[in-house]
């Protein structure tokens, strides 16, 4: 905070208030235990690994260059793919759900929203573990498929990319439904009605009326699903196999198993850059759509 003379009257726009200092301890805490550690990770990402796993403070960009190695590139690529696929599936599942909730009787809406949110408030490990029971070789899904005669031998479901994506969709579906619900709720039903009256096909109504008008909710939901998906650790760790590793697992592996902290730090910053790019995309879209609606 800038130094200032408490006895002089505050100039406009300048912070001269004693109560403002109440924020100081919290800000100090966040500086010490949030910003400082991030800065440390950033600094270490340019250092190199010592022979026995320590850190040698010599500036190098080698860690970032190492990431172009096909092995790391593959993990980065499949993380982006799993997260994108998760986002797409959440949209396909979440849109009808949000639409139905927004169009149901007003007194039912809070209850239905609560039903969507409730699993989210339960422990993430426990929810992921529940899928292990369902997807296991002798699990419920295989039992069902065998009993119905759909398959002859149990399917390999657990420890596959499919399981990872199922787990991610399960974990983050509520993040898609909430913003979509808000957007659909604001959509004037008369506009859809008008499109029907003008003989628009169902698909045309969806793509040319509903989607454009609910775009802010769609972008918001997609970003909210994509961000935790790309950074996930628990889901790929429990439901995925060694071949369906994601960035989060790579970071943990580099830090705790290989003990190559500089490389782990570089991977962390690549992950953070991806997340920040998604956030920037969201704000840019929000700024663009906010303009015309305010003028209307």
């Amino acid at each position, binding site marked *: 905070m800038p130094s200032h003379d408490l006895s002089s009257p505050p100039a406009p*726009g300048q912070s001269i208030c004693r109560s403002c200092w109440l924020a100081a301890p919290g800000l100090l805490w966040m500086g010490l235990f949030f910003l400082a550690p*991030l800065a440390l990770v950033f600094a270490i990402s340019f250092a190199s690994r010592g022979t026995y796993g320590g850190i040698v403070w010599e500036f190098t960009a080698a860690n970032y260059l190492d990431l172009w190695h096909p092995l790391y590139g593959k993990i980065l690529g499949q993380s982006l793919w799993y997260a994108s696929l998760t986002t797409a599936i959440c949209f396909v599942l979440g849109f009808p759900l949000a639409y*139905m909730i927004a169009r149901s009787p007003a007194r039912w809406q809070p209850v239905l929203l609560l039903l969507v949110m409730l699993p989210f408030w339960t422990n993430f490990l426990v929810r992921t573990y529940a899928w292990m029971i369902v997807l*296991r070789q002798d699990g419920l899904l295989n039992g069902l498929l065998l009993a119905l005669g759909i398959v002859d031998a149990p399917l390999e479901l657990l420890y596959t990319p499919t399981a990872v994506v199922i787990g991610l969709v399960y974990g983050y579906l509520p993040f898609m439904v909430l913003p979509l619900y808000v957007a659909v709720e604001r959509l004037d039903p008369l506009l859809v009605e008008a499109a029907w009256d003008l003989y628009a096909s169902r698909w045309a109504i969806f793509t040319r009326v509903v989607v454009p008008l609910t775009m802010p909710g769609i972008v918001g939901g997609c970003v909210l699903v994509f961000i935790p998906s790309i950074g996930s650790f628990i889901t790929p760790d429990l439901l995925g196999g060694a071949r369906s590793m994601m960035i989060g697992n790579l970071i943990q592996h580099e830090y705790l198993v290989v003990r190559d*902290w500089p490389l782990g730090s570089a991977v962390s910053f690549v992950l953070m850059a991806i997340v920040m790019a998604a956030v920037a995309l969201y704000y840019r879209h929000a700024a663009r759509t906010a303009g015309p609606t305010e003028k209307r």
Partner: protein
Amino acid sequence: MRRGSTGLTLVSGLAMLFLYGPILVLVLYSFNAAHLSMAWRGTTLKWYAALWHDEALLAATANSLFIAAISTIGATVLGGLMALGMERMPLRRQQLIEGGLVLPLIIPEVMLGVALMLLFVMLKMPLGLTTVILGHIVFNIPLVTIMIRTRLRKLDPALREAAADLGADSWQVFRHVTLPLLRPAIWGAVLVAFTVSLDDFLVTFFTAGPGATTLPLKVYSMIKSGVTPEINALSALLLLISMACVALSLHLQRREV
């Protein structure tokens, strides 16, 4: 408007089945007497009973409750003061801090975990209960600040001005007007912070040392190291506790209106 709603209802129904199916299966299996196989061998409560005799599990629960309690108190004090302090700041600065507070909520938790671990290692602080608590306060401060701030902005400034006009000094205004009005938001924040701390896995995973095993860490190691039916019972219990917390928080929010 009703046209095409059957397909909609169908997909929504499937989505609900998807959301609740696995949870129901888990709860159901916690009563299964079979030890290893998934086949049904009758109902039993023995896995729940076994939980009570698992010393390591009880110790982990105690650690979790201790960490959640201390970090909730710390975050509520620091975050509450922050919300109060931000109120009079120039708008630009408020927005800057608000933007900064969102950062811990959006960066991947694995990153916060490794960053804190690095800091503690560099500072030569032994990893244990203390480091876990320090870390939990970091992700709870933004939650508390945002929740209390939201309530603070909804308060009618006339109430506080009236008290000041009647001769109350700034402490009295805070003690007798602002604080009582904020109370529901503070309790809501306490509940959320406590739940988030209790549920946290990743930050704890990287900042806990030996002897600081929490309930989620214990659950994780139980899941990883071959599955015993005990874990099903423990999971079902944790689900129940989470649901109870949500119900309590909804009840508090209803009173706030």
